[in-house]
């Protein structure tokens, strides 16, 4: 991994995000309705501000090349001249949506609050659920997979595999409601169902003041995803165990447990890193279903609401953030693989020589 490749990566990431932002702005213009329309759909008598609409009528970017028809010309095409329909370069300076939404810390159409403030608060709630869930998925998946290969209780291991597959195929909505009925409803009623009732101001206080509120949402993310890591780790380990080095290792008298720890675990970490990278955007986008059911004011819910309300500055910021995290995730995966896999480093140094 040379400096040149890092430079190319950063440039590529920046250009990709810029293109995505422009595509998003274009899409926003194509989607019918505005925030004012949404308000009127609740009460048609509302006299709307028009503010939300006007903001999207600004030019998209720092310069424009497409023909700029005014309303009169649109209504009367006969008045158009050749010059009107030819592409023409116009410099819009900072008076464009791209600049305003990206650099001017724009405000939400809905409540006038700063977009960055809204996104940061929601992100805190999402991370407090998703991060422990992600770590637990890796730890539990890894441990279970290793146990299933070491144990002599084959029937139990097969049952675990079966159970994890069933959990994986269960829709999140269904699983969440099932857990709610069992643990928060009439059956046991030992766990709380709604995270907002924890009455903590900041998401980080949850761990200290009310960790019980995290149990059900974390379980709902953990249980369906566990099977993915379990199967991934199991398959990789079985593949390695079929290689001659494993037979030699066991024949040399080393215990199976030590063999797993010293030899197999590092090898499985490489494909696991790739999965981890793909899961990073999930940290940002959250899960709409889980956040709705457990009343978590996270990014998944915010993204859904901002699209439904046509609150475009917030939706735009969240989508860009998710895209950025995806790019970051891919970079992190490459880096981890480069660190863990000596073959990649060797290949690199050979190319340099």
């Amino acid at each position, binding site marked *: 991994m040379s400096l040149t490749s890092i430079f190319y990566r950063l440039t590529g990431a920046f250009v990709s995000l810029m293109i995505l932002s422009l595509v998003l702005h274009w899409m926003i213009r194509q*989607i*019918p*309705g*505005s*925030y004012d*329309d*949404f*308000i*009127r*759909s*609740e*009460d*048609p*008598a*509302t*006299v*709307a*501000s*028009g*503010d939300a609409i006007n903001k999207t009528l600004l030019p998209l970017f720092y310069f424009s090349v497409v023909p700029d028809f005014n309303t009169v010309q649109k209504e009367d095409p006969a008045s158009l001249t050749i010059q009107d329909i030819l592409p023409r370069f116009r410099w819009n300076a900072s008076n464009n949506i791209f600049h305003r939404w990206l650099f001017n810390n724009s*405000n939400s159409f*809905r*409540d*006038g*609050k*700063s977009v960055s403030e*809204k996104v940061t*608060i*929601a992100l805190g*709630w999402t991370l407090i659920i998703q991060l422990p869930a992600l770590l637990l998925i890796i730890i539990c998946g890894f441990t279970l997979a290793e146990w299933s290969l070491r144990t002599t209780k084959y029937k139990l291991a097969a049952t675990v595999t079966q159970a994890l597959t069933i959990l994986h195929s269960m829709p999140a909505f269904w699983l969440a*409601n099932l857990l*709610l009925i069992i643990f*928060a*409803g*009439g059956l046991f*009623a*030992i*766990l*709380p*169902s*709604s995270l*907002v*009732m924890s*009455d903590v*101001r900041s998401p980080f206080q949850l761990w200290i003041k*009310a*960790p*019980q509120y995290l*149990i059900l949402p974390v379980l709902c993310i953990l249980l369906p995803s566990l099977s993915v890591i379990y199967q991934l780790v199991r398959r990789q380990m079985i593949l390695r165990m079929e290689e001659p080095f494993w037979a030699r290792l066991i024949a040399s008298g080393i215990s199976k447990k030590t063999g797993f720890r010293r030899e197999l675990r590092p090898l499985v970490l490489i494909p696991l890193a790739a999965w981890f990278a793909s899961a990073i955007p999930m940290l940002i986008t959250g899960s709409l279903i889980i956040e*709705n*059911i*457990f*009343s978590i*004011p996270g990014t998944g*819910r*915010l993204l859904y*609401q901002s699209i*439904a*309300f*046509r609150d475009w500055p917030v939706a735009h910021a969240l989508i860009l953030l998710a895209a950025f995290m995806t790019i970051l995730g891919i970079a992190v995966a490459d880096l981890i693989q480069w660190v863990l896999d000596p073959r990649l480093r060797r290949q690199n140094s050979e190319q340099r020589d």
Partner: protein
Amino acid sequence: MSNNQYVLWINRLVIFAFTTYLVMSLQSCKSDRSNSEFVLRIRIADEPDCLHPVVSQSSLASQIEVLMMPPLFEYSPDKLEFSPILVDSLYAPAVSNDSTLEYSYHIHSQAVWDDGHPVTAADVLFTIKSSLNPCIKNKTYAGFFKNIREVRTDSSDPKSIRFLINRHYMLGMEMSGNYCIYPEHIYDPGSVMRSFELSDLLSKDSASWSTPQWQTLRQYADTYQSAAFCKDKITGCGPYRLSAWNAGQKIVLEKKKNWWGDSLVNRFPLLSSVPDRIEYWVIPEEATAILELKNNRIDLLSEVTPKVFTDLQKSEQGHLSFYTPALMQYMYIEMNQRRPALNELAVRQALSMLFDTDKFIRDQFNGLAMRCNSPVHPSKSYYNASLRPYEFNPGEAIRILTEAGWKDSDNNGVLDKVINNQKQELKFNFYLTNKELSKKIGLLLQEECKKAGIIIELVPREAAALMKDLNELSFDLALMSQRQQPSLWDPYQSFSSQNILPGGFNKSGYHDAVCDSLIQAVRSAIDERQRKDAYLALQQKLHDEVAQLFLFIPKERIVSNNLIRMEAYSRRPGYYEGMIRRQ
């Protein structure tokens, strides 16, 4: 012990400690409702945009704002008649001249803001002036106040105020004080709005202001409607103050200690403020909210889906309380009468006979709705009770259509007719929201219409997109819901021929000279008897002409636990927080 064993023991210890911590924390899952203070917890599905009456645009915001910033008077939730809040009493208006009525009020001498400043007529005048600032984004208030002629304050008695209002406008009383009152010294410490005359704010358009004046108005409006004023700085003379607003979580109102209105509650029931705290919890998912209600962690939830409501009624009778007041809202199908086919009365009548409203209410609403025949709520004194609904009768619908000349001339299964030398087929698009209930209405109408030779194409849209299509008049039929107010119903917006242009509120394009004159009679009547007669005749006309396809008035579905005692009302949201008591 080897190193490995140490690690193993440490792991076990950590897991044991964490599990113990979790188990201990589970103790706090149980409801911990203390007996010392009465905390009322209400579930809301989403939080309001802001708490600032002039700026906010959601009905939930209005519901909360009124507890902190009460108006001079308000409709009592039970009788739907004006009842004083901030004023001593309500008098009939005096006739000032041929075109003006004078409303006089005296604000309670005890009424003060949180900082001890008295509530005065100047605050009321400031409220009106700031709403009329042309740079305020929400123009709803500005439109509301446009029939005010003058507001007179008295320097010798700062608590007295007189309004001179256009006599020929039916909502004069509302305009004189049925809105939240702002404290001038907090929302305008620099007295900026005092430098503007009310008459100028009422009459001048944006081009008539000088540049410095416009800049002052703009600067003031920017501060007045800023995010800070929308959330953190809300203050009023009502019984509650905003104690906390955790974004996406909850809004907490706290009862003020030694509030001035407590001594007046016996004479002015709308000053009631029984709960010590009112907490609005944001729980979007209905199933979760019901669990919280059953566990007594919330006290009240409304807008429960009909099926869940009736299921709960069966399973939780005795544990929970159920209320079903008829809401001030009705559902109807808007028919775009700019289309030649829908301009025919026979087609509109046939369509109204092809929707089995009773069946729909029975099957989909579990009986929790009532039929409506007019845009007026049945609780109003001027509701025309003699109207008979168009019963579901496909045979009669086909007969009416045949009589009007509609027949399947080309045997394609669709009725057609030549209108203005053009063959018209009975094929309509039907715009509706993508909610489950809307789709079911669409499917039921589609099914019956197909049997009669009318093709309905369903066009489900998101709420915002649907409104755009309605404004652009690209619809044939559209499923709509209209909220009704406790105030006099103004038919001008929805049914006057002056509102049929694109962007106007009369989306159906219905226009009729008799209807216009009746609307005029309703709006300008001074005698209540005359107004009622005009209302009755107008409802009859709209019903006979099938101006809209009136469907039903949904009943509100409110469920509460048995920790509280409350009355249910038809006025939104169906309950009055200040009057809810502890069991």
